[in-house]
């Protein structure tokens, strides 16, 4: 992949988490590591084998690369009273994503819809998306926070990949079952040693996925969920969540579908040069809804409600699907462990006296 000019981005251990970063060789992968996740908790744990991909996910997703946290949109320069917008010169990175999960691919599909297939097209996302390649990995070790099965996004990846690997590790062998998704994938595969998969191997691969499905314990009831949330604007459960939520915005940062950004215009001290930057933003910030000298959503309650209702309800009206892929990151990385699979059923309960 590197020979083809791609920068390989894959899972790697950094700051006590399995995150995504540049991979130079197999040794950079989290060999023999897994991550245990619970609401508000993420812990690395050593495995007894040397599996490369036996974990679910980490705080980063493809979003960090396709929809970067900070990017300069353009620079402008002043000269003799006028100013000019400079042409965008930076080349678009070519990423080869290794180890991508089904939920992340679903999230990428959702971001494709938002950023490329609606009224306008985001050229930053579109260029990086066009340039990237994906080697997916079929999940075999879901985390306790996963609920992709409820969202119809996993555990098996079915599309958007060039190659998909299922890792089979046992006492005797360490093998990868490879599915080819595209011509590029086939080309890549032809450059490494491989053999046609036997029936036995395919059976074991299916079994591994089956086990992953069994291993997913969290559920989210999605039937009627969009209407339920839109009809729950005044539900006391929002006050309950608000008493715990810190409005820290972690959830929006780790969520692979959250796309909100802000635009910052800066200039240097001399004023000769000004830049426009695009940076991630979060609906949890007070300033997000600022208008005419005040914010419309001043309470944490209103901001949590906006986030959840957008993600699980308005998203359907806007983009034709749920905004949630069931990856569970929002709960693992929430400092107080808010678990939306536990919050949502509360709205379906009969309200107490209001």
């Amino acid at each position, binding site marked *: 992949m590197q020979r083809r000019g791609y920068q390989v981005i894959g899972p790697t251990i950094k700051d006590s988490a399995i995150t995504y970063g540049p991979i130079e060789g197999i040794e950079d992968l989290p060999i023999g590591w897994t991550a245990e996740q619970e609401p508000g908790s993420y812990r690395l744990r050593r495995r007894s084998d040397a599996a490369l991909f036996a974990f679910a996910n980490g705080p980063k997703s493809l979003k960090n690369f396709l929809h970067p946290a900070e990017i300069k949109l*353009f620079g402008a320069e002043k000269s003799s009273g*006028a100013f000019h917008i400079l042409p965008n010169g930076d080349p678009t990175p070519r990423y080869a994503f290794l180890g991508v999960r089904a939920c992340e691919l679903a999230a990428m599909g959702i971001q494709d819809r938002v950023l490329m297939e609606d009224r306008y097209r985001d050229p930053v996302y579109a260029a990086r998306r066009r340039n990237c390649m994906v080697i997916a990995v079929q999940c075999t070790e879901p985390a306790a926070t996963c609920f992709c099965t409820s969202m119809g996004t996993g555990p098996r990846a079915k599309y958007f990949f060039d190659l998909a690997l299922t890792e089979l590790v046992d006492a005797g062998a360490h093998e990868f079952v490879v599915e080819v998704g595209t011509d590029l994938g086939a080309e890549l595969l032809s450059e490494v040693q491989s053999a046609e998969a036997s029936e036995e191997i395919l059976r074991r691969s299916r079994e591994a996925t089956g086990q992953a499905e069994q291993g997913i314990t969290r559920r989210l009831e999605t039937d009627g969920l969009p209407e339920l949330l839109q009809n729950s604007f005044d539900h006391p459960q929002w006050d309950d969540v608000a008493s715990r939520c810190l409005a820290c915005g972690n959830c929006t940062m780790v969520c692979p579908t959250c796309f909100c950004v802000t635009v910052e215009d800066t200039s240097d001290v001399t004023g000769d040069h*000004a830049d426009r930057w695009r940076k991630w933003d979060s609906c949890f910030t007070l300033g997000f809804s600022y208008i005419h*000298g005040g914010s419309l959503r001043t309470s944490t309650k*209103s901001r949590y409600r906006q986030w959840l209702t957008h993600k699980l309800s308005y998203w359907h009206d806007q983009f034709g699907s749920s905004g949630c892929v069931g990856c569970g990151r929002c709960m693992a990385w929430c400092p107080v462990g808010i678990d939306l699979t536990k919050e949502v059923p509360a709205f379906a309960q009969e309200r107490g006296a209001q």
Partner: protein
Amino acid sequence: MTALSHPDLLDPMRPVLVKVADVSRETQDTYTIATEAADGESLPRFEPGQFSMLYSYGVGEAPISISGDAGDAGRLVYTIRSVGAVSKALTSRQPGDFITMRGPFGTSWPVQAAKGSDVLLVAGGIGLAPLRPTIYHILRHRTDYGRLVILYGARSPKELLFRKELRVWAKFPDTQVLTTVDYGAPSWRGNVGVVTKLFRLAKLQPERSLAMMCGPEIMMRLSVRELQARKIADEQIYLSMERNMKCAVGFCGHCQMGPYFVCKDGPVFPYSKMRRWMGGLREL
């Protein structure tokens, strides 16, 4: 729905340089700036109700309604109230200065659908600015429309926009212009009171009326109630909404109001769409 008519379709975040041709002061804090093409490019056309993102060098961008004549291809005119850093910078521009523009964006007033109907325009404060292109259009094609009623409310007489034009418009056939203020100076001889009190003075046939409103949300909410009491259908009532905007193209997420992006599903909405989200839901 209007397609983006900006020449650079490839990058909706990339602005175009425009030259400030004229600046005039409307009130204490509100100015109208007229922009012309710079760099030999021509300006895009716009539909009444649309807005542009205007950038003042080094300060930032803000969404500003286009308040000029859609029939004038050479200029894009904006009426801006100085309320923050960006609007202050924009209103401080002088003729010959450069700013940038992205757009026009957003949905437009139903000027075509209103043909043959009586048209009621209700404006509050700076809300008259995004309605002015509609007034120009209707007056230029006067016989295509029935009665025209313009109800305009502002805080005080000094804050009424386009006063000279209001007098001119009132002279058109079958055209009624009524203004009111919340606080009248002792010498004020016009109406005093909230703009909804003017409704009963409007000569309209509700069954063939279409209303377009722009102003503070509370004014629009009250006006809707008056219109409904006068049997004007929700589908015949249009509002222009306003929310925080950073991109104007549906990517930054800031302008969401319920399921709608005000920048691309609006800013003009039929009330039938907005009804659910305008019922005074606190902190929607």
